[in-house]
């Protein structure tokens, strides 16, 4: 099907007169951007007009002012550092363990039979629900968050890597074996490269879970971190700081996605054009 036909089929409602000159991508950007700005303006106006007390909903300008103030005074940096440490260490550990475990489970049937039930049980529920136990074991400091971040991220990475190995091209493996490739060679030059897209899918899911682990862990019980800052601000009715903290988490989530996407592109550059998944 040509792209021309595609456009015709998708033209549901008649395009606006002004929008006709714009490509669909530009229309999307214009309409989306306008809506976002409109919502922010509405939020600001409603608060400025005194319809809702800023204590309850804050306002974009107050959040921005608060954010600048916190960043300049340097109060927030300690919390950011603690949260980043929890996230990075837990996540990197989860990636290392998850990828190796996924490869092991995918390559050795019996390992899969042994470990499978645990992975299935852990996958059925968000690991964040184990937080109370982890806090009992590791205290309310940084270690319980590390543990919950690790547990949250390790399962999706393991499962995705496992299914990547399972779906690797049997023909390629057979060809390599008939040319006398060793198990290690098959592993490093066929299975591993073919699994990379799956690993990145797992890593992206895992990043979300890891971030959730940081947030929930710090809200639940903590001594420092951005989540702790949010919880404390909530207790003192400091709505501006709550929103600023939430924004920090959103920014962290978006930044992780960007980093992972560019890493994926780097690892996928060997693939011929058009085969990228």
């Amino acid at each position: 099907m040509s792209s021309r036909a595609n456009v015709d089929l998708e033209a549901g409602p008649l395009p606006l007169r002004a929008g006709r000159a714009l490509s669909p991508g530009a229309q999307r950007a214009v309409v989306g951007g306008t809506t976002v700005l409109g919502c922010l303006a509405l939020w600001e106006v409603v608060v400025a007009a005194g319809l809702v007390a800023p204590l309850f909903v804050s306002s974009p300008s107050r959040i921005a002012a608060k954010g600048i103030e916190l960043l300049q005074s340097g109060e927030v940096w300690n919390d950011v550092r603690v949260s980043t440490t929890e996230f990075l260490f837990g996540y990197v550990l989860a990636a290392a363990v998850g990828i190796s475990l996924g490869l092991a489970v995918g390559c050795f049937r019996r390992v899969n039979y042994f470990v499978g039930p645990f992975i299935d049980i852990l996958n059925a529920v968000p690991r964040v629900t184990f937080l109370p136990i982890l806090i009992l074991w590791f205290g309310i400091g940084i270690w319980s968050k590390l543990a919950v971040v690790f547990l949250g991220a390790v399962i999706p990475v393991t499962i995705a890597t496992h299914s990547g190995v399972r779906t690797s091209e049997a023909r390629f493996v057979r060809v390599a074996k008939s040319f006398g490739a060793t198990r290690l060679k098959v592993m490093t030059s066929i299975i591993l490269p073919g699994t990379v897209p799956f690993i990145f899918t797992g890593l992206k899911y895992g990043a979300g879970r890891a971030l959730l682990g940081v947030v929930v862990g710090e809200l639940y019980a903590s001594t420092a971190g951005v989540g702790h800052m949010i919880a404390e601000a909530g207790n003192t009715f400091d709505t501006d700081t709550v929103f600023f903290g939430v924004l920090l988490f959103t920014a962290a989530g978006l930044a992780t996605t960007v980093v992972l996407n560019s890493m994926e592109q780097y690892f996928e550059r060997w693939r011929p054009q058009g085969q990228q998944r």
Partner: protein
Amino acid sequence: MTFAAPQAGGNSIPTSTPLLWERYAAFERPILGALALTIFLLFWEGVARGWWADLLHPILGSSADALRVRPIFLASPSTIAMSAYSMLFETGELWPHLGLSAFEFVSALAIAVTLGVPFGLIVGRYQYLSYAVEPLLAALNATPQIALLPLVVLWMGTGVAARVFIIALLMIVPIVISAHAAVRTIDARLLRLARSFSASEAQVFKTIILPASLPYLLAGLRLAIGRGMIGIVVGEVYGSAVGIGVMINRAGSTFKTDRVFVGVFTIVIAGLLLSELVRRLERRVGVWRESAVDVQ
């Protein structure tokens, strides 16, 4: 060759051996799985009761005592089972907690589905609406909404309403996103055909959009259920009264470890049952799904 295969006549291997092996091979997966779980539970029981410390004491001397775990840290599986039994059937104190949490969960799910599904479908149907809402949805999806919990408490207090609200907020995002995505993937030719035969919008929604979206909606439901579990545990941190999350929190702060485990396992079992329920539903609707990314 000296180690040729045994001849049919002269072998002394009892015929039951290969049979037994074959039977084992047929059930290797469940056997090994059960074995692994049993070993794990035994190991856990042993750690909690100090079996391993006793066992290794003659060899390692006093350093084996490092294996002793104080009961406030770890309850043995048998203690947990007994405490679950007593809380369920002797004192019955688990039921009110379970009842309220289930009520919160179900009401939040009802709210999230009745608001989220129509919203997602309608937004997905109309191109400009979709353009308008997409960035907001993406931002909301990138935000861990649970971080808004202190605000919800500020708005609505710590009662049941606030908990239902935060759980519904957690659930509605995946539901809206999957409903929206579902409409975007519907074959445009079907929609055009319906319009050529002058179907009304209501008919289009009822006969094309809704049935075609069902698999996506169920996938969204599955995600929403997981989110709801988080809401139960975390949303009940604030406030007192009853609820599974409240029970866990209270048991944790008084170091009643067995009760913490009972609470967490209750949620885990509920999660297992619910995701099995969704799987059944999906099978009934005849959903073919790629299992590659079936992760929470």
